[in-house]
């Protein structure tokens, strides 16, 4: 048998051609969508939320569902405006505490599901009842708020609590529980409802209808305006873009190139300051450019020596030059955190006198003095020793590849050296870090898990929750045992936000104990990273009056005020 060179070429070429054809076939079959191309002037392209495949349609999976599932399709009883600290009735037309332990929620009339059926109080009751399933992520609604019963009365839901309702947590669920159609969801099993991915069609009430892109291999998911959205008629609201295309993230760098090429209008990934140029705009026109979304904390393992000593932690806090981190790692894109760690949206609860008295800031002399007074002696190498004379060498870990944090901890190590504390930066893989953090196998880590919410309770719970489990997956990574502080946190939950005086007093107590003991060290506010391309859409959120809306396409932000961003967007003529 003779093989001719040209034969190889032919085979190769034919194979290639065949393969391309095969691919087109498979891809088309896989996505099951018809060919669509959206007019640029009517389409909003966004990116920054979706990392996992576009195939999770379960509103209960608040960490995984496709971008916009809650907000565009499913809606919540209320929305919460963190910038104004106010609730806005949404699928509920209102709600109030009729006495200290009874809350009545009124269901909005005239709302229809996208399949034409009316939304009723039964759907509301159903949506709250499914949270009783133990594996439902929002199960604490029934378990931790002190809720005893929920009854339908006419067009209202009556929530009866025990003597001391968890007002703060209940408020949180008021804008975080998605109202789902009972007539569709009743066909799903309990397992599907809590952990399944659920199926098409999506029957919601919101401003957009699912258009295309569902599927494990899909790059984008698109939504089309719902012409029958209840809020158009009842509240006079109109969303700007007719189509929304959400782009699944690959890498930060690739996404940024796409934004700079003009293919993305709303960019919710971190980008360096130099990217904010030309048509790219941000919430603030100058530093820090972005709203603050969360606080970056340093978690010292309080079961490790010498981090179990509050004096050592206080000295450590004083040693950190956050200003240098801001200029070096972030080029001014973030602001220094308040010593309490509370976000700017909670500014009104920060007791300035307490901060002035117990707060900390970069002060080498003060840090050295604290260490000396506490009995830490300096060794011949210039580093302080444990009280028993042993050497101190603390590791500080951040996930490998998180470049801004990687630079930041090098600054922390350098500035700690100035006061004689030896810190070695470490960059394990994220999965390893999560594992070590959960099981307490670390000296220090950075973390910023908690986002915007209606209440600083979520922050204090993050810091103080007890008891400590063998694996701390989400709270109290520092393993700090302070029953008094945890009781204060639980107490805060049980004060209604309207009881300003008691609330303020409780906050003062929490801030005082926090600053005196510093179980974790707040460093800076991470931004709600958002760049707007103004080539196709204008009237974006900004610090100008009337434009104060959240800027993130991230999950759980649409039901804050990111939806208002869409109702204000205007096409560029």
């Amino acid at each position: 048998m003779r093989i001719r060179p040209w034969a190889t070429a032919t085979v190769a070429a034919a194979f290639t051609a065949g393969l391309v054809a095969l691919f087109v076939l498979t891809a088309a079959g896989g996505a099951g969508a018809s060919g669509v191309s959206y007019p640029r002037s009517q389409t909003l392209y966004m990116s920054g939320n979706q990392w996992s495949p576009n195939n999770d349609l379960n509103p209960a999976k608040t960490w995984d569902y496709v971008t916009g599932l809650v907000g565009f399709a499913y809606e919540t009883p209320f929305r919460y405006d963190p910038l104004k600290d106010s609730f806005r009735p949404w699928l509920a037309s209102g709600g109030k505490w009729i006495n200290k332990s009874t809350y009545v929620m009124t269901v909005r009339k005239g709302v229809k599901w996208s399949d034409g059926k009316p939304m009723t109080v039964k759907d509301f009751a159903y949506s709250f009842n499914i949270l009783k399933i133990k594996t439902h992520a929002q199960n604490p609604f029934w378990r931790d708020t002190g809720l005893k019963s929920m009854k339908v009365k006419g067009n209202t839901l009556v929530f009866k609590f025990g003597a001391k309702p968890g007002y703060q947590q209940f408020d949180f669920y008021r804008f975080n529980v998605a109202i789902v159609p009972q007539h569709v969801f009743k066909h799903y099993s309990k397992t599907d409802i809590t952990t399944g991915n659920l199926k098409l069609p999506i029957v919601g009430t919101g401003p957009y209808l699912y258009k295309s892109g569902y599927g494990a291999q899909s790059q984008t998911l698109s939504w089309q305006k719902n012409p029958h959205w209840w809020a158009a008629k009842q509240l006079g609201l109109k969303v700007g873009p007719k189509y929304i295309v959400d782009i699944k993230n690959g890498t930060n760098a690739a996404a940024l190139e796409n934004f700079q090429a003009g293919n993305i209008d709303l960019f919710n990934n971190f980008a360096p300051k130099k990217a904010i140029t030309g048509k790219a705009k941000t919430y603030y026109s100058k530093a820090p450019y972005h709203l603050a979304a969360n606080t970056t904390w340093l978690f010292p393992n309080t079961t490790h020596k010498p981090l179990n000593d509050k004096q050592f932690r206080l000295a450590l806090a004083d040693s950190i030059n956050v200003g240098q981190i801001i200029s070096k790692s972030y080029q001014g894109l973030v602001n220094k955190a308040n010593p309490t760690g509370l976000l700017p949206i909670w500014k009104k609860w920060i007791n300035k006198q307490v901060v002035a008295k117990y707060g900390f800031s970069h002060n080498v002399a003060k840090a050295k003095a604290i260490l000396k007074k506490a009995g830490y002696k300096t060794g011949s190498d210039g580093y302080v020793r444990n009280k028993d004379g042993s050497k101190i060498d603390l590791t500080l870990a951040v996930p490998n590849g998180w470049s801004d944090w990687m630079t930041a901890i090098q600054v922390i190590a350098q500035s700690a050296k100035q006061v004689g504390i030896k810190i070695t930066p470490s960059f394990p893989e994220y999965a390893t870090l999560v594992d070590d953090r959960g099981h307490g196998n670390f000296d220090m880590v950075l973390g910023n898990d908690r986002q915007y919410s209606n209440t600083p309770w979520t922050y204090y719970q993050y810091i103080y929750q007890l008891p400590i489990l063998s694996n701390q997956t989400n709270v109290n990574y520092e393993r700090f045992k302070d029953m008094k502080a945890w009781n204060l946190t639980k107490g805060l939950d049980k004060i209604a936000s309207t009881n300003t005086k008691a609330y303020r007093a409780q906050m003062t107590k929490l801030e005082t104990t926090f600053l005196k003991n510093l179980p974790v060290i707040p460093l800076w506010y991470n931004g709600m990273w958002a760049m707007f391309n103004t080539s196709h859409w204008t009237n974006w959120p900004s610090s100008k009056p009337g434009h104060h809306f959240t800027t993130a396409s991230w999950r759980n932000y649409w039901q804050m005020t990111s939806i208002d961003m869409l109702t204000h967007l205007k096409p560029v003529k």
Partner: protein
Amino acid sequence: MIRYLGRKLLIYLVTFFVAVTVDWAIPRFMPGNPIDQLLARMHAQPQSQQALTSYYTKAFGFDVPVWKQYLNFWVALFHGDLGVSIANFPTPVWELIRGAVPYTLALLVPAILLSFWAGNKVGALAARRKALDNTVLPASYVLTATPQMWLGIVLAWVFATTLAVLPVTGAYDLSLQPAWTLEFAESFLKHWVLPFSALFLVAFGGWAIGMRNMIIYELEADYSNYLAALGAPTKLVRKYAYRNALLPQITGLALALGAVVAGAIVVEIVFSYPGLGTLTLTALQNRDYFLIQGIFLFLIMGVLIANLVIDIAYVFIDPRTRVGMAGSN
């Protein structure tokens, strides 16, 4: 012939068994517990942790001893069940792989075959034309020494960012969904060019150098001199030399497959190309045992099958193999 194939098949089966076992074991011995990862990502409240942990432990079959997990894995494998993705629970692994495979194949197969064909042709040409030898040879050395990922970044920078003639990320335009349209096909091809080129060029360099050196060697071999002395035309001599030089190249192809697959993985990541490479990265980041296992299983099978095909093809291409087999019979 049958004995030859039987022996080969047996070797492949043993390799498959060992490779799959290693594939099963590696993610399990990596640090990090996937369920903890999942709970951390869920922001599960501590009070729910117990219920969720036991639910997921059971759902993933981690509630049985390791040896049983291993047996269950083989049983499931023979039922075509690769398990459920952990990070994308409860999406079946097969669904994720099936979605990504066409993209990877669309890059890999043309890159391997075309680079092999073009590299050998150009290498052979270079061996007899001095001008070509002086240009192609150094260029090939540079290309073959370039990591595909780096070349990908350079190509993206030149053609997508600076010249803006080709798109930089993804497999098709963002305003499109895969469909039977010319518009989609065109967009797909445009997005395919750069990642394909990154893979093609690096492999091309390697084949060109190999063939150039082999041809020079073959042209100096006794049979070539003998042929020439008999008065055979140069063209014929070169044809024979080419055919002989091709044999080690084909062996090289079998050996290079693994490296090309690895190259495709990083190139896909550079271009956010939605194939197995990108999927591997997310699977590793999430300690997604079953997905990692599934992807590697797929790659192992791919490389083994391709090797087997080359082994069989060799019998037809190289008459000596056939003669050898006949002799042994």
